[in-house]
């Protein structure tokens, strides 16, 4: 009697492999590293310029709207949290909640844009410009560089929201969602240094 059996051809995806895993596309991580290096150089330039103009930087920093900066920190942290919840929802094949969490992230991210535009409007009313002082040059260029990243992040979030509504993300097909999420978290991470450095430390 035949007792041995040949293994059946696999019809399903292999079981998950326990071990280290980089969430998202490898290319986005190289992009993130390039972005972090650029922001890092900006931060170092600000810190050492400040060291040579302490009184000027302290006086002009005091005029910044620290409440708006703190509110924007709350908005970005919340948007990041919503993105994490969206990824977790997709992992349990909950397409509608995934889309809803992403919509929440889009709205809070948009809130950041509104607060920041209000801040810029107030600054321009006071004739603050790139050439008005070294501090203002850094304040405007650093925050605007970051602002542009938030806008790109929002575009990515809207694309992911659209994908989530079509049920595009599910276990085994998470790469697009994880890739966009990694970019958004990078935007948040950079702000978590930019805010204390430019708005608070004096």
């Amino acid at each position, binding site marked *: 009697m035949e007792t041995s059996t040949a293994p059946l051809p696999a019809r399903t995806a292999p079981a998950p492999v326990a071990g280290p895993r980089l969430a998202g596309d490898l290319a986005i991580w190289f992009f993130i590293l390039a972005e972090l290096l650029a922001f890092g150089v900006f931060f170092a330039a600000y*810190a050492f310029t400040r060291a040579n103009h302490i009184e000027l930087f302290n006086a002009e920093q005091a005029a910044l709207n620290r409440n708006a900066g703190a509110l924007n920190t709350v908005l970005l942290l919340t948007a990041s949290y919503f993105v994490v919840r969206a990824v977790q929802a997709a992992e349990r094949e909950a397409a509608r909640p995934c889309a809803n969490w992403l919509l929440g992230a889009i709205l809070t991210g948009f809130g950041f844009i509104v607060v920041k535009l209000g801040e810029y409007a107030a600054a321009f009313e006071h004739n603050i410009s790139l050439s008005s002082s070294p501090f203002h040059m850094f304040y405007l260029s650093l925050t605007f560089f970051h602002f542009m990243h938030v806008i790109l992040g929002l575009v990515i979030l809207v694309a992911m929201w659209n994908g989530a509504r079509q049920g595009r993300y599910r276990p085994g097909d998470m790469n697009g969602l994880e890739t966009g999420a990694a970019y958004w978290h990078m935007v948040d991470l950079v702000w978590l*240094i930019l805010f204390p450095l430019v708005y608070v430390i004096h």
Partner: protein
Amino acid sequence: MSANVHGTPRSSTILWATLLLATLLTWSMGALGETGRWGVAALAVISFWKGAVIILDFMALRHAPLLWRAITMGWMIVVWAVIAIAYIKGLAQ
């Protein structure tokens, strides 16, 4: 299917609430006016911790190959070290 590296809703909600509390703390330190050397040190430590949560938990690098975790955390260590050196240099002015 890939291994779950994004934590649970409960764990991420606790981290988010803690991040907001830390933000409230640093905001109040700034609102109190002069932060002083120790205030700045506390601010840097809290901000570093917040960044570590984003890197390790939200970006899920806690479960990534060590090299990626080392590069991103190393970036943050270098940036805060540079900020600290520049701040100390400014104190000597």
